[in-house]
């Protein structure tokens, strides 16, 4: 689930922090990277350690010292086929949505649910029909799934975990949609995991334990 990733980056240390350089560098790295998606890599949890700091360069007119740092980050970086556990947050015709708390963008499409399953329009819930029994995939339930694929959205190298709302998008769902700009209901997140649960041992944790 978590891996170390080695990075190199330039960090500016303001003059007032120059006597506690290492601590200032650690903070600058955490400010920049923590809780952000590194494109194609994963979600950064935080700094693991600093391996190397170059000598500082001071540019004219700028009192800060600029250093090049090599460091290791702790990154949430699941593998294809890895088993993860989260809770069901919502469901619709396109599948189930699962959150791990620190990572919210997991989708389990209908083709990845145990077969046969149906979407109950009234309860807004998926139901697995097993041996004549209705196994409800209720919201809030803990669910174990396997990673099928991970997609990175068309974003910068380093993105906020939750993309900001598009200009013109309404915050409240009850407001009438603007006639000029049709904002999509789901902005594509920078990192999206597709999971599947159609294998024994997967699905609601309470089914197996």
């Amino acid at each position, binding site marked *: *689930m*978590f*891996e*170390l*990733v*080695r*990075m*190199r*980056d330039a960090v500016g240390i303001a003059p007032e922090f120059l006597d506690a350089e290492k601590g200032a560098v650690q*903070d600058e790295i*955490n*400010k920049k990277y*923590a*809780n*952000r998606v*590194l494109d194609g*890599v994963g*979600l*950064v*949890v*935080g700094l*693991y350690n600093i391996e190397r700091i170059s000598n500082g360069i001071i540019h004219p007119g700028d009192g800060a010292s600029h250093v090049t740092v*090599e460091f*290791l980050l*702790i990154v949430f970086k699941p593998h294809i086929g*890895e*088993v993860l*556990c989260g809770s069901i947050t919502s469901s619709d015709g396109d599948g189930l949505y699962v959150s*791990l*708390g*620190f990572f919210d963008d997991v989708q389990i499409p209908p083709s990845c649910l145990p077969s046969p399953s149906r979407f109950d329009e009234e309860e807004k819930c998926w139901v697995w029909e097993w041996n004549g029994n209705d196994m409800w995939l209720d919201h809030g339930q803990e669910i*174990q799934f*396997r990673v099928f694929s991970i997609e990175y959205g068309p974003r910068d*190298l*380093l993105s906020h975990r939750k993309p900001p709302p598009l200009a013109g998008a309404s915050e409240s769902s009850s407001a009438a949609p603007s006639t000029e700009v049709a904002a999509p209901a789901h902005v594509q997140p920078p990192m999206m995991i597709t999971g599947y649960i159609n*294998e*024994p*041992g*997967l699905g609601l944790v309470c089914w*197996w*334990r």
Partner: protein
Amino acid sequence: MEVLEDHAGMLTNYEVYELVSRDRADRVQKKQGDKQLHNLRVIQSQVIRHLEARGTNLESREFIRECFGRLKNEPYLLSSDEVLHIVNVLPKSAAEIHLLVSNCSERLSDEQVEEILELVSLQAPE
């Protein structure tokens, strides 16, 4: 900004739990209230909460060492990746062991599967 090495090392969930809890406790103790470290605080508390809900906080370094020591050797002969997966998932049923060990029915007997479940059950000592 440059990614030098994508796979610089694997971490067990327990190691991440230990690292993140310790860092968070240090910051609380030093009363580091820098607003710009808000993102760090958010992800730290969310990761801790997730791992505690999974029972990761009940593990220990000795537990991790014992799992790797026993499961990689005879008679189980699991790969490092499989042991890592097991100590992260903490399976509680035979079906879950089958998820985590490839070709499980060929490599492990039912008794061995039970033994693994027993090893990772993290029963609190009497």
